[in-house]
């Protein structure tokens, strides 16, 4: 298979992203990006089943709006990695900053290390597996999709959740409004087992707890006196 290397120390990022955007339909080639040095917007808006390996730390929005492609960051990722991903896979081998996988509609985001605050905020159908812990306000207003946290979570996990489901292995500092622990069903164990396998994480699904919405915020309650 063809393998192309770009060195961001000598090649403008626009040239790299332009190359990736112009690939022919169905292209499954393999692209290496060297010396990313924290540049923003690496491999954003891809729409071919190409594999892109970023060798170092990426800046903001790496793999953002991804479709079909597989983007691997051999380092950490800045704010908004895989933001609004539609399909494909983004794998961060280090840690990810705030807003990882925000609004993702599809695809799989894997973060081997920790994720910052607001991970999976407004998730719309994508899957996120975090090997470490996530910061506060993660899965805020998450509408659809699954979020797996192998470590701990900060404050207000799953605040104002819709129909996304969270699987948490460690402890949450606090759950957000309307989020609640629920028993794990056989279907949950199967789903979680598949997600962990896809992410390459070796944990027993039975060691996780399920968090989902109690749906009490779905309808306006005039008697609640704003006490949520």
């Amino acid at each position, binding site marked *: 298979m063809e393998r192309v290397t770009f060195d961001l120390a000598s090649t403008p990022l626009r040239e790299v992203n332009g190359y990736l955007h112009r690939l022919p339909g169905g292209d499954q080639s393999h692209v290496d990006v060297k*010396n990313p*040095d*924290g*540049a*923003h917007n690496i491999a954003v808006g891809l729409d071919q089943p190409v594999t892109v390996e970023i060798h*170092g*730390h990426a*800046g*903001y929005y790496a793999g953002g709006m991804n479709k079909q492609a597989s983007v691997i960051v051999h380092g*950490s990722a*800045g*704010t908004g990695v895989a933001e609004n991903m539609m399909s494909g896979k983004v794998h961060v081998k*280090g*840690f990810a*900053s*705030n807003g990882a996988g925000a609004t993702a509609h599809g695809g799989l985001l894997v973060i081997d290390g920790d994720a*910052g*605050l607001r991970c999976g905020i407004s998730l719309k159908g994508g899957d996120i597996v975090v090997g470490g812990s996530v*910061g*506060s*306000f993660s899965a805020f207003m998450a509408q659809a999709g699954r979020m797996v946290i192998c470590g701990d979570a900060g404050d207000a996990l799953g605040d104002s959740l819709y129909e996304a489901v969270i699987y948490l292995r460690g402890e949450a500092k606090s759950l957000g409004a309307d989020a609640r622990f629920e028993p794990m069903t056989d279907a949950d164990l199967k789903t979680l087992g598949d997600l962990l396998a896809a992410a390459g994480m070796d944990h027993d699904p039975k060691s996780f707890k399920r968090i989902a919405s109690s749906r009490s915020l779905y309808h306006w309650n005039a008697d609640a006196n704003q006490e949520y």
Partner: protein
Amino acid sequence: MCGIVGLLVKTPALKQQLGQLMVPMLIGMTERGPDSAGLAVFGEPLEGSARKLSLYSGLTDDGADFNWHGLTHALKEHLSVDAQIEVKHNHAVLTFDVSPDMIKKWLREHHPRLHILSTGQTIDLYKDIGTPTQVAERYGFASLTGSHLVGHTRMATESAVTPDRAHPFTAGEDFCLVHNGSLSNPYGVRRKLEPFGIHFDTDNDTEAACRFLEWRLREGDDLETALQKGFEELDGFYTFLMGTPDKLALIRDPFACKPAVVAETDDYVAIASEFRSLAHLPGVKHAKVFEPAPEEMYVWNA
């Protein structure tokens, strides 16, 4: 938006390269802060009771043509003070061995538009409007030496683009602070401090945080206690990076709204808003790179 950078060298040999290592860090943050730039550098302390002031003449009528040597002559004549002066463009470091309050009072009376950037035994402070590249060249940042420094690139949101509103801000002696973010209660903090006789130079929100923390340190709090009170008192978005003669300290607001990343090796601790300002540092590929957590204190000793 703004950019912050900080560098503390652990290996004594690197003290000579402090400025050289830092300039690309500062320039790397140009997109986050293109309108002004500045830095405070901490070096060997002056001996005995000697003090130095960093002064800025850019707001005077003479600007960079300010008569600095006339100033030292006048200090000799009026106050019988032997002061040494080191001039770079519209900036000078004035060194003397008397009470800095006496000199500052005289300066305010005789040169009210001469801006006093900093006071102390270890700190030199530079800031001006212009891109980070322009400001770094204007003052020869690449040749600065010392143990640690705090730098800033500014994209103003809370007050006008003027040299005195650029960062770092300073208060008291040998203390400075840079800020990425915006405070929501700076006037409340000012109203609390003004009855104690604390004077403000500008209407900038960061100055309120700087003077609040320096006030706590002056009242006897250690740095950690002062920062804890800062968490309780200061409301808004912030990543603050502070410098004292022997420490760099960093805190982020509870929502981590403003970024920060740290790279640490056996030779140095480097802090920046984004990794792209750290990417050029020697050995950074093998550094311990991490993101400081919100509402935690990070203090590094020089």
